[in-house]
Structure formats: structure tokens, C-alpha cells
């Protein structure tokens, strides 16, 4: 039997990823396009010989093209050629879920409604009559609970038979003037798989992506002109749709009066959303998380370094053979990769996942808004910036959550100063390890200061019209640990499969270049840079290699100076090296992602400018410090 493809669609925080987890389980291969909140996750599993591919989409409230999440989901709906859609509805606010469901039904996509949070709704005294809802909408309505797996089997069985859309499906009846405008536009649409009425509606609502299906551009203008009774036709369409959704909700909902609900949620918010204690708690929590990461990072690095060293010495190889070089450099790279991946990447994403699933992340976003607005950034940039502490590449992609390209680019430029896990590893593993904690801390402070100067400089140059804050704050929930682990693994997979092999390869390539003597040809012309930084000439090698893959910086430094770094460099030099390698767009992979998001020219300008700025700043910083 042929495989089928099903999209999972729902509001943010409605439990899409929990459902995906319940449907396919963590053991099934999940292919993922990196990025956060604007990612599409695909997972496949066989059920009774039918292969079903599930496509998880970013959370949205309506099918519109306002935000990147909506664009991604809209594209998935119409370009993934899915056989059907599971709309995950929130039983505690059915009308909102129905708004989107009605839009999907207008597009005549076969739909199953999975009703989540039924128990939560019952606690609030809300009972939903699923049979009645099914009767009105003419689609299957299945109550689910991904945590207890309730309803999951029924959902799978229904989905397996989703193939065709029933004939008598519910559609919204708009006002006569709007209906006749729709009719007029429908008669002049190009032939596509989408229903004509849907195309006409989207066009009337001003979604320009749908203009291409119209035979000519005049139709939409004429239709709007003929709608004298509806100067704001798009608004009236939205009102009717929401009105219909709440009408249906009222028909199928029974409210049972309850005694007062628990106040603990409100108590937490009183602190976390307070004007003073909120930002304070946010700052302290982030510092605590950061502290834990650095402490554990240090610990694992120590363990892995001594482990590799003892392994290498036990091999006791003959000197200067190619095989030895490959072994030594390769293993060093591997050890470094694992000691970064484990604490800085995996633990970081674990914390991020916990913050997300408990509902804390949205509160932190609200609190960070004030500071970010001061820097000319929207509150939502908190998410990509926080992700930047993990890895710049997926964080660059996550800037898509922001509305305008200027906002996206401005946020991406800050990745030059938000140290990613690899840069944190340099600061902690090299600067901190060989120069002490105070020195490591001063590198963090310096790059933060450099970032502030950069931000206010940019604010003077570019006018950024930022989106107003509009964010739903989900209730606090106990996170499902299994889910958080699965999510963290998905996010760090690329690091494991791409970065660690690159580290091993980089070490070996350096070994070959070094043995053949080519390396010195590269070093010569860049002499002015190392003079400006007040560092030994060979230092340029780890800096250059660092741009290929940031984690090579540490490995290369050890290669060129030997493991006795504190003998080769004084404290001030270690600090300068730390600053010079921290500030700037970190590596080729990040550059590649920037090119993909912002085009070759802007990406290259940003990368070069930020690196030069970092080098200038590092040179200036040590000069100022040595004068003091």
C-alpha cells in the first residue's frame, strides 16, 4: 500500500511535538531542518503495513502570511503534497483552534481534529461534545492525550483512512456581498489543485502569494472596489470566521460551574511578570544556567583531555610517522568535539527545552523585551539570541521568527558577540584553563562591551521598525522529560554528525600542512595582524583554522604552541587571543547560514566587518590594559 503524508498543525504550545513523539516514538528516525520554532520536523513510521510520514509544522494561530512561522506552515500545507492534516485543537479554547480549522476546511484539505488538553478543560469545567462537533464539521474529532497515549491508536486508524475529503464538509457562509465577490474572483482563477473559493478568499484577504493564481491583477482590485459595503473586507472575513468558530464552540460546549481554580499559576506570574522582580529573576536564572554549563563544561573537558592523553601515551607510537600524526590529531579533535558537545551543546539545549516546555521561556522573553528594545531589537529576538549560546548556525536560521529582514539581520549581527558553545569552550578551555577564571570572565565582559558599542552604533545607522509585542503566555506545565531529551537530541544532531567529523578532519589536515611546510606560506602575509595583537606569529594558524571550524582553534593552538601554553604566552596574551577569537562571526558554517538567509553580499560584509572589528577591539583592549 502506498505511503501517506500527514501534516500536524496547531497553535503554539498546543502539544504538537508531544503528539509527534506519541505517534512515532523517540526510536524512529526524525529528520530535521535545524532552527527553532520555525522548523519542520518529519518522522516516519509503519502502522499495519501503511507507512505514515508525519510533518510537524511551526505553531500558528491562522493560515496567513504575516510571520515566518505562518509562511513556513502555509508552504507546507500547499507544497508538501500531504494527504491530510491533523489539526491539534486546544479543548480549553476551542474557538481559537476552530478558526484555523475552518481555514483548512476552506482549502478542502482532508482533516482530522485531535482534541488535546481535554482533562485540563474538564478541570476548568469545560465539557466538549465530540460527536456533535463531528456532526457540524463533518470531520473526525478524536480526544487525545499524548502523555498517556489516550486516543493515539484511534487517531492513527482514522488518519490511515484519510484519503478523501467528505462531500458535505462545513464551510463558512460569508455576507452576500463578500460571497458574490468571491464568486466573481473564482470565475477567473487559474486551474490548480486548490479550491477556487479558497484562492479567492486568500486574495481578498490580501495574501499576495495567491495573486499568481489569478488570471490578471485587475480582478482583485475590481472586486474590492465593488465591495462598497465592506471598506475593510479582510477584517469582515476574519470577524465572520471567528464568529463562526465561537458559534460552533458554543453549540458543542457545556460549562459546569466549578469552585475557584488553583491560584498557584497566578502567584508565580506575580513574581515572574513583575516590573522589577521579573527581569531580576530572568537574569539570575540565565546566569545560574550559564554557571552550571561552564562548571560542567570544565569538568567534562578535564576528564576527556586526561583520557585522550593517557590513551595516546599508551599507544606509544613511533615518532613522526603519518599514521601517528593522523591518530594523535584525529583523537585530539574527537576528544575536543565530545567535550564540547556534551556539556555546552547538549546540556544547553536541554535547559532550553526545559524552559520552553515549562512555560518559563515566554515569561523570560517578556522580561528581556525591555532590554532588547533599548538595543533596537524586538522582544522575540530573545529566542535566537539564547540559541546563539548553543550554535550560531541554527540561531541564524531562528532569526526567522522576527518579522522584518532588518530585524533579522540586526539580530544576526549580534551573533558576533554572543559566544556560541565553541567560543565558550575557547574562553573556558584555553583562557580559563591556562590563564585562570578571572581572565576568562574578563573576555566575556570585553566581548559584551564590544557588543554594546556595536549595537548602539548600528542603532544610529539603521532605522529599525520593530514589531509590537504580541505573545501568548502558556500556563505553567510539568515538562515531559522524554520529550525534552528528544528535542535536545534533534537540535544537537548536526553538531554530532557534521562538526565532530570536521574536527577530526581539521586536525589531520593541519598535520599534513605542517609536515609539508605549506603552513608557513600562509603565516607570512598576515604578520601585521599578529603584530597588532601582540601575539607570536604562529598564532594566526589557530585563528584561521578557527574560521573553518571554531573548535579547531583550541586544537590548533595546542598544535602550534604545544601543551605548555602558559609558558609560551603571558596572561595578557592569552586574554588578547581569547578576545580576538571570540568577537566576530565565528566560522564558515555560520557564514554559510548567513548567506542562505541574507544573501552573499550582506553575509560577507557582516562577517568581514565583525572579524576586523573583533581584531581591532582585541588589539586596543590589551594596549589600554597594559597602559593601566
Amino acid at each position: 500500500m502506498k505511503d501517506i503524508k500527514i501534516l500536524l498543525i496547531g497553535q503554539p504550545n498546543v502539544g504538537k511535538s508531544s503528539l509527534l513523539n506519541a505517534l512515532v516514538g523517540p526510536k524512529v528516525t526524525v529528520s530535521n531542518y535545524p532552527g527553532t520554532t520555525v522548523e519542520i520536523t518529519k518522522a516516519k513510521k509503519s502502522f499495519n503495513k501503511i507507512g505514515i510520514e508525519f510533518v510537524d509544522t511551526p505553531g500558528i494561530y491562522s493560515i496567513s502570511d504575516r510571520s515566518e512561522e505562518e509562511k513556513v506552515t502555509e508552504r507546507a500545507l500547499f507544497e508538501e503534497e500531504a494527504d491530510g492534516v491533523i489539526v491539534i485543537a486546544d479543548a480549553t479554547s476551542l474557538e481559537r483552534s476552530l478558526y484555523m480549522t475552518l481555514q483548512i476546511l476552506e482549502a478542502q484539505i482532508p482533516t482530522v481534529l485531535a482534541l488535546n488538553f481535554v482533562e485540563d478543560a474538564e478541570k476548568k469545567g469545560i465539557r466538549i461534545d465530540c460527536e456533535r462537533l463531528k456532526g457540524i464539521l463533518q470531520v473526525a474529532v478524536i480526544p487525545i492525550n499524548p502523555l498517556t497515549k489516550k486516543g493515539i491508536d484511534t487517531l492513527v486508524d482514522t488518519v490511515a483512512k484519510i484519503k478523501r475529503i467528505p462531500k458535505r464538509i462545513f464551510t463558512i457562509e460569508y455576507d452576500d456581498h463578500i460571497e458574490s465577490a468571491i464568486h466573481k474572483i473564482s470565475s477567473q482563477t487559474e486551474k490548480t489543485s486548490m479550491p477556487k473559493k479558497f484562492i479567492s478568499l486568500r486574495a481578498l484577504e490580501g495574501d499576495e502569494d495567491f495573486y499568481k493564481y489569478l488570471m490578471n491583477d485587475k480582478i482583485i482590485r475590481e472586486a474590492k472596489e465593488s465591495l462598497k459595503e465592506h471598506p475593510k473586507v479582510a477584517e469582515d472575513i476574519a470577524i465572520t470566521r471567528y464568529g463562526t468558530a465561537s458559534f460552533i464552540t458554543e453549540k458543542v460546549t457545556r460549562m459546569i460551574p466549578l469552585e475557584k481554580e488553583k491560584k498557584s499559576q497566578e502567584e508565580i506570574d506575580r513574581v515572574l511578570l513583575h516590573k522589577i522582580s521579573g527581569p531580576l529573576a530572568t537574569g539570575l536564572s540565565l546566569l545560574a544556567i550559564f554557571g552550571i554549563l561552564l562548571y560542567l563544561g570544565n569538568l567534562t573537558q578535564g576528564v576527556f583531555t586526561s583520557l585522550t592523553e593517557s590513551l595516546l601515551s599508551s599507544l606509544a607510537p613511533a615518532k613522526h610517522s603519518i599514521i601517528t600524526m593522523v591518530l594523535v590529531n584525529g583523537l585530539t579533535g574527537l576528544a575536543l568535539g565530545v567535550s564540547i558537545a556534551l556539556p555546552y551543546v547538549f546540556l544547553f539545549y536541554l535547559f532550553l527545552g526545559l524552559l520552553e516546555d515549562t512555560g518559563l521561556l515566554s515569561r523570560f522573553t517578556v522580561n528581556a523585551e525591555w532590554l532588547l528594545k533599548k538595543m533596537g531589537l524586538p522582544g522575540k529576538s530573545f529566542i535566537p539570541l539564547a540559541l546563539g549560546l548553543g550554535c550560531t548556525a541554527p540561531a541564524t536560521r531562528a532569526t526567522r521568527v522576527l518579522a522584518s529582514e532588518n530585524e533579522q539581520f540586526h539580530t544576526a549581527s549580534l551573533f558576533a558577540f554572543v559566544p556560541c558553545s565553541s567560543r565558550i569552550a575557547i574562553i573556558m578551555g584555553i583562557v580559563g584553563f591556562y590563564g585562570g577564571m578571572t581572565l576568562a570572565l574578563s573576555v566575556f565582559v570585553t566581548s559584551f562591551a564590544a557588543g554594546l558599542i556595536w549595537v548602539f552604533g548600528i542603532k544610529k545607522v539603521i532605522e529599525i521598525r520593530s514589531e509590537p509585542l504580541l505573545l501568548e503566555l502558556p500556563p505553567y506545565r510539568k515538562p515531559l522529560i522524554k520529550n525534552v531529551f528528544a528535542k535536545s537530541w534533534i537540535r544537537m544532531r548536526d553538531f554530532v554528525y557534521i562538526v565532530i567529523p570536521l574536527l577530526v578532519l581539521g586536525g589531520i589536515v593541519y598535520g599534513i600542512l605542517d609536515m609539508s611546510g605549506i603552513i608557513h606560506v600562509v603565516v607570512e602575509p598576515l604578520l601585521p595582524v599578529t603584530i597588532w595583537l601582540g601575539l607570536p606569529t604562529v598564532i594566526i594558524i589557530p585563528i584561521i583554522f578557527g574560521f573553518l571550524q571554531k573548535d579547531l582553534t583550541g586544537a590548533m593552538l595546542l598544535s602550534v604552541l604545544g601543551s605548555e601554553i602558559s609558558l609560551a604566552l603571558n596572561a595578557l596574551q592569552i586574554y588578547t587571543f581569547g578576545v580576538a577569537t571570540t568577537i566576530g562571526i565565528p566560522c564558515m558554517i555560520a557564514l554559510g547560514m548567513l548567506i542562505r538567509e541574507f544573501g552573499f553580499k550582506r553575509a560577507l560584509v557582516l562577517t568581514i566587518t565583525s572579524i576586523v572589528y573583533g581584531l581591532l577591539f582585541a588589539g586596543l583592549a590589551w594596549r589600554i590594559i597594559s597602559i593601566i
Partner: protein
Amino acid sequence: MIAYATTFNNLSGNAAKESDILKIVKEDVLRMLRERKKKTSIGIIKDEIKVAHALIYEALEELERNGLIAIQENSISLTDLGQESAKNILEKHLVLEDYFEKTRRKIEAHTAAHIIEHYVSGEVINNIKKLSTLKMGGVPLTKFELNKEGVITDITFSDYRLFERIVSMGIFLGEKIIITNEISRGVVVKIRNKKFALDKIIAEAIKVVEYERY
């Protein structure tokens, strides 16, 4: 003056929604009978409600079966049950039209009322009904008191996409709203057990009145 069932001028293209249309035809028949306050012939109904005649017969049949109207030869009248039901429908339309006239231009008000009358939930209608007796249009959310229950009376944005986003999130006319927290750049509000952080600019575009006031 209320136009009857203008919603169906364009019935031909929409065969798939009979049950939905039937509901509206039935509501319009009831409203019409109520407004005329006397026995009415099928012919008059056919003239006023411009839909396929088969649909009118179907609507009448169902209304009779449900005990809402009585048909004697060619004249139709409301039963007591029908009177009650029609009163609600008529009231709903008048409430909406009256209400929207306060916030929109007249022609827009009529259309807006007509659009949502068949759909809007009873609770929202009830709130709007109470609102329409107030002369004021409400204050911007930014000027509203913390922890006080209010009702949304108007949402005005020049940017349609922002309007749609807000409506689809469940922030709608007639909904009860409470400001639970004031944050540095706006407010946190609660609507039907859901919490939202809203920027000052958005909060300013949402008008509310105190729930206690009516």
C-alpha cells in the same frame, strides 16, 4: 430597515452548504414573521427571501416540525415557541446593528451586524447587548485598571494582518478581559483562561469598558 436573507443572492455556486444555509433561511423566516406581527402568506416570504423556493419550503417544513410556526392553508404564523425564538433572533440583529453604529459608519454597521448575527455566540451577544446601552465606546486598555474585569468594545488597527492575528488568537469584541500584570512595555491580559503579553501600541488599539458598569 432590515434586509432579509440578502445572504443568498448568490446561492447557485454554493450547493455544498445546504444545512448551513437552511439554518439561516429558518432564522430569517422567523425574524420576518416576528417583524410583520401578523399572518403572512408563503408568497410574501418568497418575495422577501430571495432563495430557491425549494429551500423555503424545506425551511418552513422544518420550522413546523419543530413547532415554531403554524401553517394553515396559505397563511403562516408563529407559535408561542416560535415567538420566543424569533424574538431572540430579531433582538440579536438589532443589538448588533445598534452596537456597531456606535463604533462604525452606518452602512458598515449594518453589514457588520448582518455578517455576524447568525454566528456570534450567546455570551458575546449578551455582552454586546449590555454594551450597546452604554453611550461611551470604552477606554483604551492602557488606561484600564489592573485586575478589574472589563469587556472589549472595539479593536481598531490600520494593519489588517495585525487585526487578523489578534482575532485569531481569541481577542474579540464582547470578550471579557482582565489586566493581570503591568510590564515595562505594555500589559499582560487574561481572556478566557488564556494569557497574552501585549505591547502598548496594541493595548491602545483595544477599547474596554468596566464589566460592572452594566
